[in-house]
Structure formats: structure tokens, C-alpha cells
């Protein structure tokens, strides 16, 4: 009975959003367009309930401190490919990690869907928005539940497609269309690495099934014995895939531009769920990564670089959503730093992955609330998002103010809030890695970057907060005279998310609830209790409060300071504002040469290939020009030809006659 229920709950989770999507596309698109959000909300509610149920069944016996035997729920939905030894079913597999991830995805998307039902009201593409969003949630759930690498890849692509559809939701806006294209193209690079990794896994292990790969240590041991370098390549290529999807350096350029999409999309896809798929992939493949410590160092290095670059860029942005986007990139960098910390020693593997996943979990909530609050600000300000054009909104938008503050405090890492716990644990594991004998120096640098980034995070978050909600009350003219605060459908999800951002860390962080649950993921190495690092806690608290204080001084106390600093240091400001010119470099050194190459190809096509084709086409024309004068439409010409023919016949007959007569005579 329980097994039956487990297996059916498994397919119910992706099926509910898929049904919602089909219903909106087939029916909701035509009739009752203004209620197109209802199927999605219902579907997501069903999926959320199913996920919560799954959460309780995957780890059965009131999980305790001891490492339970591996357990995963598997169901095969459909036999997809079966050729010879290749056997790839559409197989759903849930374990502790996927259950946590699913809970996060469905809950955040349910809240975002409710928010969007009010936010998107009146848009001509209202049903299309919810259809794409339903498709996204379906794809994301399938991505999390995928039972083998190929299925994972399929939905990895599907979420990319939904991201493309939703970034380009206002496709008539050239910037949105360009941003969608950019996101899609940049993601292709990562996907290329990912599919190469899949090929390599297939070649090395002969299977793509998670259960076989991760839950059988002897198989991994065999390969480790025969071809240990293979793990490095597989992990490196998997990480390339993660870099593309999770917007890490150097492929982070697409995420800030993705803010062209509607704000709920930014909150859901580009902050809470899809971009964390890369983190999920690396975490999921922990059994591989533990055997490739060099790759883990690369992961940590890339994460640190991304976190630093994004944080520097976020310092000077004036676009509220862009600040949040760079912050997202920076926090994803944090997660990768944490994942990479496992390279510091075998005993760090489990805490590293756990804390990365935990940060992802808390980040989803507070970043979602930040984005949705930004959306609420946009909604009130008549779609103006430039922070220089409004200020002092705390009176006009009290609800939004409080929810944004909650999110900002959590993101900055103020003690006892969710960001504090997760970030602190990452710092702790990095500190542990830096104390390790091997690569200690490297991880010390990473730790330094992490601390610096932590300071900057607090600063730029509160810079945005103070610029938006403090100071003199100022509205842009687009907002009208009386900006209204979030309506109930928007305020409700905001409040819930803000509450989650405040308490979710406190509930599951210090109690190690999350960590212990995650330990039940099959295939995880044996873990140890990771001690609280009080030093790091203190340092990070000081940094967070210091960053907030600096921001307060610069933007509330004496607003001139920021302006003066900007004028005093124009070059660093420009470098920061332009995102270290990475976009510019990418355009100059990659896109432009490629464009030039495309131009050359186009010329080649036009002048060489087209000419060849035209030459082929010219041959009949040549024959035609020879024969055409005969067919000139003049009756007399035809008659003349007939007459000549008659003449020829006559002469031939005459000759024949002459021959026969001379023969007889």
C-alpha cells in the first residue's frame, strides 16, 4: 500500500503542473483567459502536497543521527529507448536530496504563481505566461526526479527552453528578445560540456542510471582502479554544464540580462530554482566528485571568482533587479565554493555538499522574496526599476518595505536569520578546508574571498534597500500620484516568503535538521557531525553588520558620500558598473569575431555557393536562349519550319526514287 502510494505520488508531482500546462494551452487560452492562473495554482498545490508527502516517506523512520541505509523511491513511467544494451527508461527516482529540492521548487513556485496572478493581470499574454510557467515547473520537477543522466539532460534542456520562453515573454521588446537569445546561446556552451560528460559516463560505466551508478560503490571502485583519470574528466565536464546553467564565471553574462523577463519569472527561475540546477547536478554527482579533488578545487576557484566579480558589479548597479541578479550570481558562487570545499579533505565532502544545498534552500526563499518585493516596487512605480528615480518608499509601500527588509537581512547574513546560518556554515567548511594539510593555502584565499564577498553582499543589499526605501519620498511620473502597495494576492506570498526567509534557517540550521535529512541521500559517503565554528559565526556577523552600517552611513546619513566617492574614483566605479567589462570582452573578443566569421560565411554563401547554383540554373537558360528564337510565337515561322520539313521529305523521297530507278535500270 505504501509502496503503491509512493510510486504514484512520484509521478503525480510532475504530472500536476503538466496537466495545468495542457489545460491552459488547450482550454484556458481560449476561454476565461483572465482565470488562466487557476489551473496552475491548483496543480502546484497538488504538487506541493505530494512533495511534502514524499518528504515524509523517502526517509522513513523519523530520521535520526545515525546514517540510515540507502533508500530511494523509483518508478518507471515509460520505456523510452531500448536498443541492444542501451536501455533508457523514463524513470523517476526520489531520494532525500530530490525530496528537499522538490519541496523547495513546488512551494516557491506556488507562491510565485499566486503573486504572478495579480502581478501579470491585464497582460495580453496572460495565459501564455502561466502555460510557460507550468511547463517550467513540470520540467524542473522532472529534472529533479530524473532517474538517469539522459532524462536529466532532456529536462535540463527543457528548463532552458522555458527560461528562454519566459525571458522573451515580451518578445516584441528587442532587448527582451536579445536577452532570451543570449541566455539560450550561452547555456548551449554549458550543455555541450554536460552532454560530453554523459557520453563519457556511458563509455566508462556502461550505464546512465543513477541507481546503478551512485548506489553501487564497488562499480565506482572498479573504475577508480582501472582508469582513475576518467573521474576528473567526467567531473570537469559535468561542472562545465553546471557553470552554464548556474551562471558561473565565465558564463555568468546571461543571468543579469535575463532580468528582461517578468519579475515573477526572475524570482522563480533566475533566482530560486533553475539556476540552482547546476548546484543540484554537482551535489547529485558527489559520489563522482569525491574522487576528483582537483576538480573540486576548480569548482571552488570558479565559485570564488564568480562570487567576487558579481559582488563587485552589484556594488554600483542602479537597476534594482540587476543588483539582485548579480547578488544571485554571487550567492551561486558561494554554493560552488562550498561544493568545492570538499577538495580540502575527504571528511569535508558531506558537510560541503550539505551546506551548499542548505544555502541553496535558504537562498531560494530570501532571494524569491527580494525579487518579488522588487516586482512589487516595479508594480507600484509603473515599471520603473532605476533606483535613482525613486526613494523613500517605506511610507508608500509598507508591506513591500517590510518583506524586502526581511529578505535583505537574510541575504546580508544578519545573525539568526536564514542567510546567516547557511553562509556561516559555508564559511566554516571553507575554514576547515584551509586548515587542511593539502591545498590549505588555496582554501585560505577562497575563504578570504568569501569573507570579502560577505561584506560586499551586506553592503550592496542594503545600498539597494536604503536607496529604495529611505531618503526623501520621490516617485517617478510613471507611477501616478498615489502609488499603491501590493494587493492581497501579492502581499500574501510576500509575507509567507518573508517569514520563511526569517525562520527557515533558524529551524533547520542550528538544529541540523536539514543536514541530517540530506545525509539519507543514497550514495553519500559516511559523514561526521560537523561542529559549529563560532569564530566564523562571529566574523560573518561582524561583516554583515559592518556592511549594513557602511551602507547606512553612505546612503542615509550623508547621501553625498556615495556621489563624492563616485566622482573621486571614476575608473573603479566604471569598472564595477560595467561588470569588470566581462560582457564587453565577451562581445569584443568572442561575439564580434564570430560575427565576422558569420559575415565571411554569408559572403561565401552568397558569392560562391549561390554563384555555383546560379551557374547550374544558367545552363537551361543557355539552352533556352538558343532554342527560344524558334519559339517566337509567330505563325509564319512555324509554317516556314513545316515547309522546310516538307522540302526535306520531298528531296529524301526523290533521292530514294533516283536510287531505286538507277538500280533497276
Amino acid at each position, binding site marked *: 500500500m505504501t509502496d503503491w502510494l509512493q510510486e504514484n505520488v512520484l509521478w503525480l508531482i510532475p504530472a500536476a503542473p503538466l496537466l495545468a500546462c495542457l489545460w491552459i494551452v488547450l482550454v484556458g487560452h481560449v476561454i476565461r483567459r483572465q482565470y488562466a492562473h487557476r489551473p496552475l495554482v491548483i496543480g502546484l498545490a497538488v504538487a506541493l502536497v505530494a512533495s511534502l508527502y514524499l518528504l515524509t516517506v523517502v526517509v522513513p523512520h523519523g530520521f535520526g543521527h545515525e546514517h540510515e541505509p540507502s533508500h530511494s523511491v523509483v518508478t518507471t513511467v515509460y520505456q523510452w529507448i531500448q536498443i541492444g544494451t542501451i536501455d533508457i527508461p523514463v524513470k523517476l527516482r526520489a531520494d532525500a536530496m530530490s525530496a528537499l529540492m522538490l519541496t523547495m521548487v513546488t512551494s516557491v513556485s506556488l507562491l510565485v504563481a499566486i503573486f504572478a496572478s495579480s502581478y501579470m493581470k491585464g497582460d*495580453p499574454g496572460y495565459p501564455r505566461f502561466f502555460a510557460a510557467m507550468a511547463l517550467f515547473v513540470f520540467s524542473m520537477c522532472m529534472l529533479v526526479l530524473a532517474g538517469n543522466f539522459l532524462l536529466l539532460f532532456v529536462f535540463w534542456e527543457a528548463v532552458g527552453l522555458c527560461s528562454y520562453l519566459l525571458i522573451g515573454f*515580451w518578445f*516584441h*521588446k*528587442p532587448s527582451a528578445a536579445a536577452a532570451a537569445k543570449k541566455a539560450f546561446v550561452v547555456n548551449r556552451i554549458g550543455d555541450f560540456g554536460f552532454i560530453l560528460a554523459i557520453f563519457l559516463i556511458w563509455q566508462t560505466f556502461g550505464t546512465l542510471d543513477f541507481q546503478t551508478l551512485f548506489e553501487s560503490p564497488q562499480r565506482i571502485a572498479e573504475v577508480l582502479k582501472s582508469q582513475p583519470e576518467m573521474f576528473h574528466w567526467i567531473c570537469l565536464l559535468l561542472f562545465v554544464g553546471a557553470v552554464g546553467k548556474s551562471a558561473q564565471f565565465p558564463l555568468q553574462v546571461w543571468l543579469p540580462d535575463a532580468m528582461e523577463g517578468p519579475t515573477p519569472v526572475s524570482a522563480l527561475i533566475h533566482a530560486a530554482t533553475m539556476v540552482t540546477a547546476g548546484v543540484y547536478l554537482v551535489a547529485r554527482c558527489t559520489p563522482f566528485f569525491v574522487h576528483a579533488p582537483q576538480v573540486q578545487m576548480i569548482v571552488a576557484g570558479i565559485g570564488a571568482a564568480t562570487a567576487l566579480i558579481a559582488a563587485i558589479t552589484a556594488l554600483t548597479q542602479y537597476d534594482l533587479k540587476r543588483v539582485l541578479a548579480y547578488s544571485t550570481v554571487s550567492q551561486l558562487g558561494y554554493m560552488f565554493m562550498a561544493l568545492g570545499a570538499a577538495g580540502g579533505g575527504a571528511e569535508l565532502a558531506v558537510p560541503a555538499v550539505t551546506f551548499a544545498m542548505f544555502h541553496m534552500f535558504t537562498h531560494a526563499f530570501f532571494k524569491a522574496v527580494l525579487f518579488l518585493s522588487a516586482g512589487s516596487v516595479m508594480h507600484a512605480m509603473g515599471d520603473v526599476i532605476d533606483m535613482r528615480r525613486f526613494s523613500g518608499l517605506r511610507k508608500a509601500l509598507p508591506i513591500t518595505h517590510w518583506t524586502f527588509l526581511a529578505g535583505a537581512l537574510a541575504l546580508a547574513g544578519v545573525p539568526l536569520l536564514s542567510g546567516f546560518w547557511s553562509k556561516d556554515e559555508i564559511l566554516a567548511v571553507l575554514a576547515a578546508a584551509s586548515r587542511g594539510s593539502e591545498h590549505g593555502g588555496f582554501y585560505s584565499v577562497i575563504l578570504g574571498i568569501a569573507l570579502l564577498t560577505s561584506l560586499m553582499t551586506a553592503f550592496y543589499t542594503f545600498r539597494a534597500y536604503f536607496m529604495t526605501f529611505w531618503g526623501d519620498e520621490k516617485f517617478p511620473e510613471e507611477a501616478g500620484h498615489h502609488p499603491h502597495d501590493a494587493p492581497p494576492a501579492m502581499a500574501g506570498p510576500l509575507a509567507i516568503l518573508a517569514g520563511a526567509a526569517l525562520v527557515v534557517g533558524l529551524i533547520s540550521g542550528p538544529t541540523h535538521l536539514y543536514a541530517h535529512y540530506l545525509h539519507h541521500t543514497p550514495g553519500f559517503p559516511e559523514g561526521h557531525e560537523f561542529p559549529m565554528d563560532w569564530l566564523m559565526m562571529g566574523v560573518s556577523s561582524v561583516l554583515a553588520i559592518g556592511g549594513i552600517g557602511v551602507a547606512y552611513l553612505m546612503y542615509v546619513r550623508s547621501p553625498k558620500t556615495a556621489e563624492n566617492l563616485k566622482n573621486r574614483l571614476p575608473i573603479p566605479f566604471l569598472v564595477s558598473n560595467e561588470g569588470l567589462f566581462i560582457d564587453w570582452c565577451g562581445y569584443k573578443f568572442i561575439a564580434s569575431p564570430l560575427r565576422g566569421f558569420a559575415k565571411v560565411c554569408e559572403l561565401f554563401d552568397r558569392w560562391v555557393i549561390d554563384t555555383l547554383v546560379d551557374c547550374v540554373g544558367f545552363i537551361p537558360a543557355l539552352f533556352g536562349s538558343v532554342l*527560344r*528564337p524558334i*519559339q*517566337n*510565337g*509567330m*505563325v*509564319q*515561322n512555324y*509554317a*516556314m519550319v513545316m*515547309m522546310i520539313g516538307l522540302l526535306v521529305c520531298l528531296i529524301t523521297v526523290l533521292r530514294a526514287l533516283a536510287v531505286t530507278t538507277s538500280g533497276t535500270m
Partner: protein
Amino acid sequence: MTQVSEMTATALESQLIVGATLFVLGVIGFLTRRNLILIMLSAELMLHGVSINLTAFSRYHGNPQGQVFTIFVLTIAACEAGLGLSLILSLYQRRKSLDVLLWGKLGEDDLPVFTSPSNLPVQVPVDPNADYPHLSPSGRMPKTQPTTPTKT
């Protein structure tokens, strides 16, 4: 004519020569004249030449089959004249001219006209039915006006 005299091979030959000459003169008329009506008349002239041949052979061989065929030729000539004249009338109504060169254009209206070999000046009257449908020239895709995206 009740009195039938003998017909020699020489007499037959001279009759055939007359027939051939009429036929050839008809050919010349058909080939050179530009008047649609004269072209038809020349065709009738050729038929006359053939009829003379037929009757001459009929007389020579002393059986009526040649004359029977002449009657058929006569029938066909009548049909041809009726149809031809009605065609000429409708052609004339289109172009208000009997010039056969006006009808030598086989191509579409938007293709360059093939110049007649004789380079004779052709008076092309204004076509009153210029707007009847015709095929568009095929080839590369025509450049379309880029539609400006509507901003909302």
C-alpha cells in the same frame, strides 16, 4: 459536261503543275503576309491547289474518289473559314488590329519581349485587358519591407 475526252499523262502533268504552283503561291502568301485575313485566304489558296490535284487524278484514273475527297476538302475549308474568322474577330476585338505580329508574344507581360527576327516596327496598341492575372516571375525571394515591431 457530257463529253469526256481522254486524258493523257501530259495533261495530268500540266494540271499537277498548276496545282503545285497554286499551292506554292499560297505558301508564299501564308509566310509573308501579316494580315490575319490574308493568311487565311492563302491557306484557302493552298487547298485549291490540292483540290485541282485531286480532281485531275480522279479524271485520270476515271473514278470518283478524288472528287469525293475534294468535297471533303471543301467541307473542311468551310469549317476552317468559319472558325478562323470568328477567331480573327475576337483577336481583332482585343487589339483592334489584324497584324499577326501583335500575337507573337508567348512570354509573360513582365518579361522582356523577344524582338521579331525581321525587326519590323510593330504598332502595339494599348491593351484594354492589361489587368488580367498573370504569373509572377519566379526566382529569389523578393526583398520585403521589414515590419517595425510594435511597442506596447
